[in-house]
């Protein structure tokens, strides 16, 4: 369970949000809304521990995420604006390196299968440099299929994807929630994730939003 209490973030001299509190339980999805520059990405980077909060606390199962350290990062997948894949490696190599570093090594077969499910059949052993923007995104998202982490933090996961890939990604997000996982995502697109456990959080209003 992820608990956020009294969170504030200040970038430069600008207060992005303050006194933000919410709880995300198992099987729940939190969708962040807000105009450009309202602090969605900052919030996500803070939640996964990349940025430090200015005030407040983020707790995972009751303990501060900074104290948990690697025990917390084991439970998190973060996919941000940058795909985090190496241009000179093939999709399979990228995926295997990522998984090994995430602590759950996969065989070459599993990596091929994951990429195939992601709709990259025939492109698995090409250097990522020659892939299109959307295909690179698919390679990055294929990590979700192989990962055992419970909390997914996805920053604009649908950008550059085509309709089929968006549908597929929505279905794996749905599966993840149904099996007790947690998802935090931002998107400007209309998403049809029709589950009752969807929470909405609006950032960038006159005062920071509460859930």
């Amino acid at each position: 369970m992820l608990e956020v209490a009294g969170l504030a973030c200040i970038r430069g001299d600008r207060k992005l949000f303050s006194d933000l509190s919410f709880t995300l339980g198992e099987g729940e999805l939190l969708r962040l809304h807000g105009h450009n520059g309202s602090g969605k990405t900052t919030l996500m980077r803070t939640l996964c521990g990349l940025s430090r909060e200015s005030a407040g606390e983020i707790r995972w199962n009751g303990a501060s995420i900074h104290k948990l350290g690697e025990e917390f990062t084991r439970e998190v997948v973060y996919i941000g604006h940058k795909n985090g894949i190496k241009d000179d490696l093939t999709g399979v190599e990228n995926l295997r390196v990522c998984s090994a570093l995430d602590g759950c090594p996969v065989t070459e077969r599993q990596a091929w299968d994951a990429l195939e499910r992601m709709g990259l059949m025939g492109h698995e052993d090409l250097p990522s440099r020659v892939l299109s923007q959307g295909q690179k995104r698919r390679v990055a998202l294929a990590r979700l299929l192989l990962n055992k982490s419970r909390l997914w933090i996805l920053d604009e996961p649908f950008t550059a994807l085509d309709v089929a890939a968006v549908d597929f990604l929505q279905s794996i997000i749905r599966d993840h929630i149904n099996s007790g996982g947690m998802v935090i995502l931002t998107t400007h697109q209309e998403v049809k994730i029709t589950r009752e456990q969807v929470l909405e959080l609006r950032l960038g209003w006159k005062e920071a939003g509460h859930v």
Partner: protein
Amino acid sequence: MFNAFRTLLGRDLLLAMRRRSDLFTTLFFFVIVVSLFPLGIGPEMKTLRLIAPGVFWVAALLASMLALERLFAVDYEDGALEQMLLTPQPLFILVLAKVIAHWLVTGLPLVLMAPLLGLQYDLASDALGVMVVSLLLGTPALSLIGAIGAALTLGLRGGGVLVSLLVLPLYIPVLIFGSGAVEATASGMGGQGHLLMLGAILVLSLLLAPLAASAALRISVE
């Protein structure tokens, strides 16, 4: 943990193999700088023997500086670095793997090339031997210390110049003991003491530099 170390080391070596042009720039820089001095000074054997240790070590220092910029910058730009910070692996191990891969690609070739270049300076065989040993102990320390500077200047504009200003002063002990070892051997005093000091510097930087670089990376990525 060991698995992660091996994976990252293997990945960086593979990437270096796929980008061989980067690999050779450092080596050729070293070869050219070292070869320029005999051409400029002329075939004065006594002078060449005298300046050889200093020239080799300063060239190694500059070559190592040249390569530093790429140590974390590529991973930073494509987002692989922030993913590394989010893996359940100790950052110390990951940084160590990256630095070792970096040394294998940019430092080790210099060490292997040194005896051949030493012939231009008419160095005696025992002095050449000590030169190789001193470079073997010193260049990993240069990579390790340099990693701190590379991590601190990540994402800054003009980071390359800043790295030199930050890191070159820290390289001074390595330079002194490295060239000192060769000089002492050439003058018949024996360079053992210098080599032991270099070894101590290497052990110390092996222990502390990855820690400092990890902390610097966390600040740079934020």
